[in-house]
């Protein structure tokens, strides 16, 4: 145990227990430490120590200074004689960062115990790096574990456990940040998507200053077919690069990846394409099926609405663009020159395939029903 260790474990026997809490006796060293970091924010420390127990009552004083511990989370488990050593009580002395376990042991022996607690101000981040090939069909995908230890405690040799894969053994000093490779997969298939969301982007690019970029995403499937799919992928920042064909790379962009369960997709927004231009216009909006009250006022009507969409591709490669459209309320499609899928009651998605240096136009006409 390091001299400046902040966690102190004191063992004192019932016979020597005086009114004033006189701390004495051996300080059993940590045998092993596991930093369990599967929880995204909280780190569970599990340490094993050997306690020399007397027959009968024993009091174990566990105190901490200069570190923040969730005192409700502290637990002790007997590993050597789990049936013969009984935890009688846990008490918290006043005005101290400490607790006292009272144990009853059936014999005098060395007991291996596992003490666990939630230690604050130490956590981990997961980051990702992808290097796509020039064709953008696949990427070398790697993930890193970043341990940030500001807990006040230095761990000489700790095993860092995540829910996935094998643990890593490392020395982590107080106020140290450490970055280690978690995994590296070559040739992971990537899908590049272009999405124009008509709910958020301007419809007429000539009416805005600056370009209307079409968001471009890389999609990586967390599946066996992608050499992944064994574990869920933690949320974390991903940086994407691309092979430039000259033995070097360029940086394509970065995004915060969300947590991805096995079988789901990681979708990373890398940047905007300004070589695909979408112009959308409402050409018609008329009231139809008008129903009037007795005074001749309109109380209910349907609408006849026509939207035209032009997608220009200034790139030298074909583009598959997803157009997300929203139609409010109750509606039905009257006519469309492109196929769509209905994502929910009010959201439609059109997939538009535009050849290189070409453009596509389509329109859709719908009736909103029972508008008041």
């Amino acid at each position, binding site marked *: 145990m390091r001299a400046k260790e902040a966690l102190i474990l004191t063992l004192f026997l019932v016979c020597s227990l005086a009114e004033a809490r006189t701390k004495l006796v051996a300080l059993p060293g940590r045998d092993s430490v596991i930093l369990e970091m599967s929880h995204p924010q909280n780190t569970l420390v599990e340490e094993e120590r050997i306690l020399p127990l007397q027959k009968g009552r024993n009091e174990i004083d566990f105190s901490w200074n200069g570190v923040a511990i969730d005192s409700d989370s502290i637990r002790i488990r007997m590993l050597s004689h789990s049936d013969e050593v009984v935890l009688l009580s846990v008490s918290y002395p006043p005005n101290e960062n400490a607790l006292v376990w009272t144990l009853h042991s059936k014999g005098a022996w060395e007991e291996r115990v596992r003490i666990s607690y939630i230690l604050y101000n130490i956590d981990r981040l997961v980051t990702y790096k992808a290097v796509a090939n020039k064709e953008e069909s696949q990427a070398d995908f790697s993930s890193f574990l970043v341990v940030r230890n500001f807990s006040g405690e230095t761990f000489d040799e700790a095993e860092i456990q995540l829910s996935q894969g094998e643990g890593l053994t490392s020395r982590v000093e107080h106020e140290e940040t450490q*970055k280690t490779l978690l995994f590296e997969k070559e040739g992971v298939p990537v899908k590049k998507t272009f999405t124009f969301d008509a709910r958020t982007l301007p419809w007429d690019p000539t009416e805005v200053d600056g370009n209307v970029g079409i968001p471009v995403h890389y999609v990586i499937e967390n599946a066996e077919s992608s050499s992944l799919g064994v574990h869920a992928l933690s949320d974390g920042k991903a940086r994407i690069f691309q092979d430039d064909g000259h033995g070097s790379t*360029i940086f394509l*962009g970065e995004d915060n990846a969300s947590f991805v369960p096995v079988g789901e997709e990681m979708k990373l927004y890398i940047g905007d394409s300004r070589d695909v231009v979408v112009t959308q216009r409402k050409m018609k909006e008329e009231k139809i099926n008008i129903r009037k009250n007795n005074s001749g006022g309109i109380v209910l009507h349907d609408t006849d609405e026509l939207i035209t969409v032009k997608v220009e591709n200034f790139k030298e490669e074909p583009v598959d663009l997803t157009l997300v459209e929203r139609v409010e309320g109750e509606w039905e499609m009257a006519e469309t020159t492109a196929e769509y899928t209905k994502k929910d009651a009010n959201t439609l998605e059109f997939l538009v395939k535009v050849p290189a240096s070409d453009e596509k136009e389509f329109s859709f006409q719908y009736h909103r029903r029972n508008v008041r």
Partner: protein
Amino acid sequence: MRKTGIKTRTGQTGRMACWALCILVLWGGQLASGKVDLVTLPERGDTQLTIYNSADLTLVRETRALPLTKGINELQFGWANTLIDPTSLEMIPKEKVRDIGLLELTYPPRTQGVGVWRIQSKVSGEIPFEITYFASGIRWRAFYMATLTEDEKNLRLKGYVRVSNQSGEDYPEAQTRLIVGKINTVDEIVALAQRKAPYGSPVQEVGAKAILEDRAVRSEAQRELKKALAAPAAAMPQLARPKEIAKEGLSEYFLYTIEGTETIPSGESKRLPSFDQDEVPAKNLYKYERDRYGDAPVRFLSFKNNEEHKLGKEPLPNGMVKVFRALDEKGHLEYVGSRDVQYVPVGEDVELQLGSSRDVQVKPVDMEIKQTHFEFDSHGNISGWDDEKWVEVKVFNHRSIAVRVECRFNIGHANWELDKEGSFGDYEKIDKDTVQFSLELAPHEEKVFTYHLTEHRGTRAH
């Protein structure tokens, strides 16, 4: 001035401090950090800068030959007074990849601007490594100069790029590459570079500590650098022509690679010609739209970024265009105006807005208004009617060149009908409540047309 440095510590047992090496150029170290813990200098080999313009971000890639010994090696990379994102630091061996394992990268406690790699090596000797990181403070932008011929039918378009280095670090003889495109970023590099802990802290995100710059020291260092750079520069072969910029598309971006290498000391900037194209046919376009531009038409110079217009080899990055006009045969110029132009893909129209015009005028006048087709409800109150108006539009071209004028009228709702007569040119319904008349006018020509608009109101509006 060089402020990034490298030290290695090696040892079979994993203990540190057998020997150290660092690359702090002597005067750089003395002047900048006052901390001279150098010795051997593993030369910074090839350096490559990939500079972005949509974000303050430069991808720096440098190669250095690092002496490794068998066993565990520790290598310290330090950067003082420069803005480097510590989370972006990466190092990969370029040779003997299978014999060298990078175990971890540690950012030592209570220090800033230092990263230590633990490297397991099965071999001894000098190994070339590639070190990459993101730096802040180097920027580039594009700008243009357009010179119209006297008759305004053609223009000469010159594109430039200007690279400025305010990073605090000199990158001598660096291959310089520029990225045209809009990347997505989550954080600003300058903010990441100033964080107290490289990845922040779970305790609290400590406020960025501003890097203090000792300007006197800096400027002295810069003078020293200029002296140092002056000598080799004179010895370098001089090109008898401006440098060329190779351009290629990558993903959604365009990569410009400047020929050879560039030395742009911190604090300086450089202008480089990107392209120069003469005789680009341009059209004088005037747009009238009261809701958007007011009563005066706005002048545009329009052309296309395509082969027909002698362009189209590359997209045009966004930037300021300064427009001049040749006045006479002696080459005197008139300054027409300047305007930011947005990014123009290959094949797309370019419309340079040059401000409102007094030489071309559009004057719409309501000649007659009427209310017709009244409808009444069961109480005898008015429930619907039509508003009709006849608008005469006069379009004048007072210029001595031919122009195109686009007149747009916004109606404000979708229930209307429109008839037109006279010299209205091309009529187009732009959307449910906007119409456009496009007219071509010869020098000093005047055209007149009339449109009759019927707007349906109340129960007449369907």
